[in-house]
């Protein structure tokens, strides 16, 4: 399989008469985009679109999802299969990417649990989405009493539609850069270990769900997925609980574990495949999925497995089961997670553990407290700071500053490694 990402480097945003890209500027026809998302009868009349670029004194909250605009210009299927378009397999051909741009959806679904993106100041250092040029959709339901499943879906679809629309509108522009990826499960450089990626996805219920080709992850058995399919939006996010360690659709499209494993494929190891699995609530499902995922790994002759978790608490049990079941079959594991170790970092980081889990990468402690200074503009609903995850009564001060745990910041401790926190060798 070969996929070319045709990248347009977006450095700024503006509203204009025609949605297009030129000289680093993405121009957005506001009314056309508003009309597109307003087609959904589940969304209300007072939708709005705002633009936020890095360095501005802007706060976006509460954030539901972040999506990178992409559109397939050649090859099978279309971006976000099973959600927007057909269900054909994706991951080959050519895909246009508005690199540096993102669609951010914001709306009140429940009175807690959505994230913050600050475009400048100390909070901006913790979220990768402070460095993207953000087209912000501020959404509301057409009926305040609407079923929350319906409204959640409407918000999710609005973001995907907007992202596809923006990229499609620029499909005739020559790319600034073309990045090609090739991958075959059959490639096997002799002498190198066979390594796979076990990709754990949230599947607990409303606000905790993920979709694979449009299928609710809680209803699948673990399966194989090409790393290139992920780049075309085969996995879409339906969760934002809690904001720091929930994989946005953007972080799936730009999965750094996949990107780095592809770079080292054939050099340091053979990157055989991704195995996607779920994180259900029912214990029988956990046992079934972990058994099944590790069985697939063993059938493929894997010697090593990188495992990424999504979330904490309940999924810690899945992570640990995946770890020891692989290790006891002789498959070495490395785990990527984050921590809930208390504000002083002294508490146990995960709700579960096992002696086999002796190689673990952390994306940071979600309980660390940060004070975010007031911003000049807030896109969304600022008073939600008191009720979002990681906030508490009185989090929002009179001057507009917010004191919260990192948990409240979108992508702050991404367990896909798409984070600004890290240690670097100099």
């Amino acid at each position: 399989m070969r996929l070319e990402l045709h990248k347009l480097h977006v450095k700024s945003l503006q509203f204009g008469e025609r949605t297009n890209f030129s000289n680093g500027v993405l121009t957005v026809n506001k009314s056309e985009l508003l009309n597109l998302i307003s087609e959904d009868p589940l969304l209300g009349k007072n939708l709005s679109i705002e633009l936020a670029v890095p360095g501005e004194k802007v706060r976006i909250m509460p954030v539901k999802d972040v999506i990178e605009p992409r559109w397939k210009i050649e090859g099978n299927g279309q971006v976000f299969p099973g959600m927007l378009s057909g269900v054909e397999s994706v991951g080959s051909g050519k895909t246009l990417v508005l690199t540096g741009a993102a669609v951010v959806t914001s709306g009140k679904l429940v009175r807690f649990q959505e994230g913050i993106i600050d475009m400048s100041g100390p909070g901006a250092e913790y979220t990768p989405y402070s460095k993207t040029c953000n087209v912000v959709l501020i959404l509301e339901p057409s009926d305040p009493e609407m079923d929350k499943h319906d409204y959640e879906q409407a918000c999710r679809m609005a973001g995907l539609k907007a992202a596809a629309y923006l990229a499609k509108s620029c499909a005739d522009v020559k790319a600034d850069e073309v990045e090609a990826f090739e991958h075959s499960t059959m490639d096997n450089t002799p002498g190198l270990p066979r390594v796979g990626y076990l990709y754990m996805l949230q599947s607990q219920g409303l606000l905790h769900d993920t979709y694979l080709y449009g299928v609710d992850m809680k209803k699948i058995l673990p399966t194989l997925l090409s790393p290139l399919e992920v780049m075309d939006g085969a996995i879409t996010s339906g969760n934002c609980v809690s904001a720091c360690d929930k994989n946005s659709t953007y972080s799936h499209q730009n999965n750094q574990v996949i990107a780095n494993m592809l770079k080292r494929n054939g050099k340091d190891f053979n990157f055989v495949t991704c195995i996607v699995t779920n994180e259900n609530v029912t214990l029988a499902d956990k046992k079934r999925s972990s058994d099944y995922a590790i069985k697939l790994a063993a059938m493929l002759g894997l010697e090593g497995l990188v495992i990424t978790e999504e979330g904490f608490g309940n999924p810690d049990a899945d992570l640990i089961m995946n770890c020891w079941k692989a290790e006891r079959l002789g498959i070495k594991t490395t785990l990527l997670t984050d921590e809930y170790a208390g504000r002083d970092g002294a508490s146990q980081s995960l709700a579960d553990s096992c002696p086999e889990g002796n190689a673990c990468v952390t994306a940071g402690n979600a309980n660390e407290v940060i004070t975010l200074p007031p911003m000049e503009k807030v896109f969304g609903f600022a008073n939600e700071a008191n009720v979002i995850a990681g906030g508490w009564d009185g989090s929002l001060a009179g001057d507009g500053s917010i004191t919260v745990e990192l948990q409240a910041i979108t992508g702050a401790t991404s367990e896909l490694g798409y984070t600004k926190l890290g240690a670097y060798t100099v």
Partner: protein
Amino acid sequence: MVILFTNNRIFLNRVKNLKLINLSAYDVLIDVRNSIHLGSHLLTHPLCGNLKPSQQPFRSVLLEEKKGSVDFPSLSLIEEAIAVYRSAGSLAATQNYEKVTLNDYAFIDFELMRASLEHYRVLI
């Protein structure tokens, strides 16, 4: 018998077998542990949902209630869950949620249990 231990009244008349505990989420876990000591098996993870103990006032756990020897995997999971709650004790903020917020927490607690309740055919 499949039974739901919960402190969330939203489940009243919506689940076939219910043990409603009119106390905190932590107390639900303690009652679940006591039942496991008598031989019950856990059917759902006791920490479902990605809300911190200090935020989510509700906790619901599905059990197969029976008498007999202790199921050690169940015991291990419930003890780990209780440990998470205990370590979170120092973090707990006083949450005086408005009714609408409380209702949302109750609703999400229900939604996270929905698939399991359907699976075990105890949703009315």
